[in-house]
């Protein structure tokens, strides 16, 4: 359906990897392709399009439509080119008189059961059935209208075969009347997405596409709305509602999704400055043509009525907002920031950079604090998610990043997933992994909750280690214990790539009986036998990979866990080869980039310490200022200092710290104590309730720049429409900086990237020209690796020898006791994203209208809680209320919730415990009590009324 308007051509069947090349001729053109390639694809390689309906290169060949038949010399009949593999010396004719007659006949049959309302059809001009009717020269349909599926009434009576449209999904419509039962949608749901939500029901003339069972519709079925079926549908049967509403797009802007750290490439299909649809790019190296419901459909927030497009200021946070011009807002902000420094010292102000903004924007914000404020008070939301990844991987391997690209998953024999829920948090990666699991790769999941990956249809038995929250280090150390005790380690690798003596010392540490599975079972409640099975499976797999998420990092021992993971990979030699590695799944689109860009108070871009005189000299020369060598304040220190009266001003770009940071009350009282809080965002959010200046931000559709995904891939973000607020975010930061005397004169983000490349060794080869040419590159990208580095540590670790760090388990102080007997852990759901500022403003709310508390049936029964009841969740920090869902996915003693909705305020409950090395908050473990409740807590009511007050905006004179 996309061929007509996209140059990104459909080759008919997927590419095949083979070392053997086969030569053949197609219509007299010689072509060489890998063995196993279909005749259809070989023809496409030769530039010849064979007519087709059921074939697409998104899914494997099916051979049902019979339109792609060809003549092959020496072969009888008319074989389907999609299912016929090439052979050496084959001579193919795609157009002969016989073939033309067959195709015309096939097409005539298709059209005899298809409405001829092309002119008013939503797929008009974008329909493969229409194209193929043209291609085969169909001029008449000789069949009388008989039994059919498309007429609502026939001869005055209702047509029993007719089915009405299914409009249950908010983003697309299923119209069975237009369906040609090519089953592309069913196969895409199975092969690409791996959900198996669709089927062909019945047989023969009664065959129809069905979502789920008889009683299901698209919404109630297993469908996760990834859009793969809509993307492959050749007709208007499955089509985006936006296309139905406004028509076909007229141009395409290639860009990058602004949701999770997978960093999917998208084609924004535009009509003028309006997005018609977002379609995943087939040439996107992270997503390979796939998407999830968020990137594909949930971008409507960019034009939501809540979007603020004009700057606002107020004297006090108790005042209503006053809409002002940019000059007034920026002058007000700059003078208050300078006043705070004048009265309270140079260190009295700072910034928080955003993991959602571009690399260039983040670079400017940290430059603002270092070069203009004159301190190093910059931190980023990565503090609260992946800072332990940076610390742990830098210490052990030498780089603060994942080791592999996502393509590597195609080669893995076993995936160990720790503290991550990829089907919800990183859906496109999950689909790629599920494909590999269906091919037979093993799966081990280390998580308190039974995640959906374990229920992957058509995979073998996965191994689930349902550990108690907070015991990651103990369990991973026990796994290492088994590997060492049973001599399952890779001695060659360790001798060559690591320090053998160091390993010997670590082995001695591991062999202590306190690390045995039996002892660890007592702490973690994971049966010793399961720990042994997991250790043996991981060590035995030829290529084993580890993927982990915030369930690893957001703990008091987050950094230790990351190092325990690195140790496992090193001792089994699972580094440096495709299919292996240690890969963090980053929560937000640009967490990796914001860390790379020097957002942390102690590091310049490229992870060079601020006390490193060489690095400092580079920036002093580039920026023409002298720089401080002491690290600045981390986010929690900023809050503490604010409460002590010493930290007075904050510029916070694109992050809602009140909702996303732990211990909400502590955060709000710290913000209330400041003289100037500047929130730079798309929407008034929980943090802006405590702000004096609101600078309206631009969405990812409105600016140029780059995002760096979890595989270190630098992807282009391109401006598809004019910023509704008037400026791209980097321009706003520049205007603020210049009001404080910076004298910056960037005219385009490419100039900022040039400065990054000039000053950062791992980015020295990166230019916009290169990114335009290659689509994307993975850092390090420099003289040694001019096209970037998909897999790191191939011949040696970046730091030299890999380091084994001892991983002593220290129980968190957050322990369940008599008052708070349950452990609360938190996570994410597919349809929502982070604090929900974007997804709550889309139709994604049909899947997740509120946060709920998952609780085990026995814990619920003990407390007299029924499914759907309001419950109160209390910790030593605070309490909140939400509805309960009773499920065995969580173990007894564990409860689970998400934090997508501000009304829930799950972080009122979380505590100020944090990782020992990086202060990453311990979101994943909070001791709580759960009891029945009548409705929202006093705090929630109070908060709601405060929010309403804090968001008042005075009417402007112009209106």
């Amino acid at each position, binding site marked *: 359906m996309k061929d007509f308007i996209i140059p990104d051509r459909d080759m008919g069947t997927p590419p095949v990897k083979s070392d053997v090349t086969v030569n053949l001729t197609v219509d007299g053109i010689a072509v060489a392709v890998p063995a196993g390639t279909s005749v259809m694809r070989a023809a496409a390689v030769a530039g010849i399009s064979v007519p087709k309906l059921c074939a697409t290169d998104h899914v494997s060949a099916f051979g049902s439509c019979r339109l792609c038949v060809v003549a092959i010399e020496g072969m009888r009949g008319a074989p389907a080119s999609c299912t016929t593999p090439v052979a050496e010396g084959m001579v193919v004719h795609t157009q002969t008189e016989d073939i033309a007659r067959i195709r015309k006949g096939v097409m005539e049959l298709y059209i005899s059961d298809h409405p001829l309302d092309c002119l008013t059809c939503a797929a008009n001009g974008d329909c493969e059935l229409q194209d193929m009717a043209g291609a085969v020269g169909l001029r008449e349909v000789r069949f009388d209208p008989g039994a059919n599926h498309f007429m609502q009434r026939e001869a005055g009576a209702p047509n029993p075969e007719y089915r009405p449209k299914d409009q249950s999904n908010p983003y697309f419509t299923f119209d069975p009347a237009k369906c040609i039962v090519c089953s592309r949608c069913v196969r895409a749901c199975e092969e690409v997405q791996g959900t198996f*939500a669709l089927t062909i029901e019945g047989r023969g003339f009664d065959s129809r596409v069905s*979502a789920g*069972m*008889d*009683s299901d519709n698209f919404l109630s079925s*297993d469908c996760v709305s990834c859009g793969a079926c809509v993307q492959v549908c050749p007709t208007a049967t499955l089509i985006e509602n936006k296309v139905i509403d406004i028509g076909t797009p007229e141009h395409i802007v290639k860009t990058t999704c602004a949701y999770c750290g997978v960093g999917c490439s998208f084609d924004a299909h535009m009509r003028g400055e309006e997005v018609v649809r977002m379609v995943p790019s087939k040439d996107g190296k992270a997503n390979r043509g796939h998407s999830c419901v968020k990137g594909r459909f949930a971008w409507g927030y960019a034009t939501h009525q809540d979007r603020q497009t004009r700057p606002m200021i107020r004297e006090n946070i108790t005042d209503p907002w006053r809409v002002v011009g940019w000059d007034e807002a920026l002058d007000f902000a700059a003078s208050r920031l300078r006043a705070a420094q004048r009265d309270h010292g140079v260190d009295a102000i700072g910034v928080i950079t955003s993991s959602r903004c571009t690399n260039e924007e983040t670079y400017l914000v940290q430059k603002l604090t270092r070069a203009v404020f004159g301190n190093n008070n910059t931190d980023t939301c990565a503090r609260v998610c992946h800072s332990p990844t940076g610390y742990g991987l830098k210490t052990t391997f030498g780089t603060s990043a994942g080791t592999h690209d996502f393509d590597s998953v195609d080669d893995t024999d076993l995936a160990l997933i720790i503290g991550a829920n990829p089907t919800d948090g990183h859906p496109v990666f999950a689909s790629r992994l599920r494909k590999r699991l269906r091919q037979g790769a093993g799966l081990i999941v280390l998580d308190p909750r039974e995640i959906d990956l374990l229920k992957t249809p058509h995979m073998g038995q996965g191994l689930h280690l349902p550990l108690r929250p907070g015991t990651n280090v103990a369990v991973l150390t026990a796994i290492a214990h088994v590997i060492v005790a049973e001599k399952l380690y890779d001695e060659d690798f360790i001798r060559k790539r690591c320090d053998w003596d160091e390993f010997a010392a670590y082995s001695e540490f591991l062999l202590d009986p306190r690390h045995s599975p039996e002892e660890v079972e007592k702490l973690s409640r994971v049966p010793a036998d399961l720990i042994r099975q997991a250790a043996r499976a991981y060590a035995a797999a030829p290529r084993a990979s580890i993927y982990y998420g915030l369930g690893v990092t957001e703990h008091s021992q987050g950094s230790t866990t990351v190092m325990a993971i690195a140790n496992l990979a090193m001792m089994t030699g699972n580094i440096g080869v495709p299919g292996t590695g240690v890969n963090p799944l980053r929560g937000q689109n640009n967490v990796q980039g914001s860390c790379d860009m020097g957002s942390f108070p102690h590091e310049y871009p490229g992870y060079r310490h601020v006390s490193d005189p060489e690095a400092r000299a580079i920036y002093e020369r580039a920026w023409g200022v002298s720089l401080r060598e002491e690290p600045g304040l981390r986010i929690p220190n900023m809050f503490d200092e604010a409460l002590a009266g010493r930290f007075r001003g904050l510029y916070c770009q694109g992050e809602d710290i009140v909702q996303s940071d732990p211990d909400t009350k502590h955060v709000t009282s710290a913000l209330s104590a400041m003289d100037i809080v500047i929130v730079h965002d798309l929407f008034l959010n929980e943090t802006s309730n405590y702000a004096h200046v609101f600078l309206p931000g631009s969405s990812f559709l409105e600016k140029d720049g780059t995002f760096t995904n979890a595989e270190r891939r630098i992807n282009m973000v391109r401006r598809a429409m004019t910023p509704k607020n008037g400026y791209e975010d980097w321009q706003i930061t520049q205007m603020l900086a210049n009001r404080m005397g910076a004298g910056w004169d960037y005219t385009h983000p490419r100039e900022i990237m040039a400065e990054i490349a000039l000053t950062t060794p791992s980015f020295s080869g990166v230019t916009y020209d290169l990114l335009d040419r290659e689509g994307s590159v993975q850092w390090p990208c420099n003289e040694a690796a001019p096209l970037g580095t998909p897999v790191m540590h191939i011949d040696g670790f970046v730091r030299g020898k890999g380091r084994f760090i001892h991983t002593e388990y220290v129980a968190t102080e957050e322990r369940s006791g008599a008052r708070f007997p349950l452990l609360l852990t938190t996570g994410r759901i597919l349809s929502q994203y982070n604090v929900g500022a974007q997804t709550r403003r889309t139709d994604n709310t049909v899947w997740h209208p509120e946060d709920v508390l998952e609780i085990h049936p026995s814990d619920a029964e003990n407390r007299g809680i029924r499914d759907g009841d309001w419950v109160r969740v209390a910790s030593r920090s605070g309490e909140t209320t939400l509805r309960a869902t009773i499920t065995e996915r969580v173990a007894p003693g564990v409860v689970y919730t998400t934090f997508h909705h501000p009304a829930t305020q799950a972080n009122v409950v979380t505590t100020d415990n944090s990782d020992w090395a990086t202060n990453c908050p311990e979101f994943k473990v909070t001791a709580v009590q759960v009891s029945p409740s009548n409705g929202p807590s006093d705090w929630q009511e109070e908060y709601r009324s405060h929010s309403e007050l804090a968001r008042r905006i005075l009417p402007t004179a112009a209106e």
Partner: protein
Amino acid sequence: MTMTAFSADSRERLDAIIAAHRDREGPLLPILHDVQAEWGFIPEEAQPVLAEALGMTRAEIHGVVSFYHDFRDKPAGSHVLRLCRAEACQSMGADALADEVRAALGIDFHETTPDGRLTLEPVFCLGLCACAPSAQMGERLLGRADLGKVQRMVAEAGA
């Protein structure tokens, strides 16, 4: 999705059927046969349970169940009369016979008599082409069928 839950007793019977077959190769069809033998049809509530047990999805189970005409989505009458409508039988007057039988029983194909005793179904070839037209009632096959023979067979079965 919300589905009418199986009663505990039904769930136990279903689990027993699954347990009897799950370790064989291709367990779904034998399970569906047993489910239909147990309930007389394939209850929709059973489909998600089968899906979960076999590492499949309910859409796939529905696809299989709906593919085979012999798997029913609602209970049949206590007896099922099948009339062959395939080519050989048609050439020997199966269509006329079908009209007569339908008129005599007062029901159409896929319908059940009001007393719930008999369901009429078409079938496409019973392998009795040499003595067409043919019919089937339970395990009993009937060759060279006519209205009288069919009615006798129905009466003998007590339907």
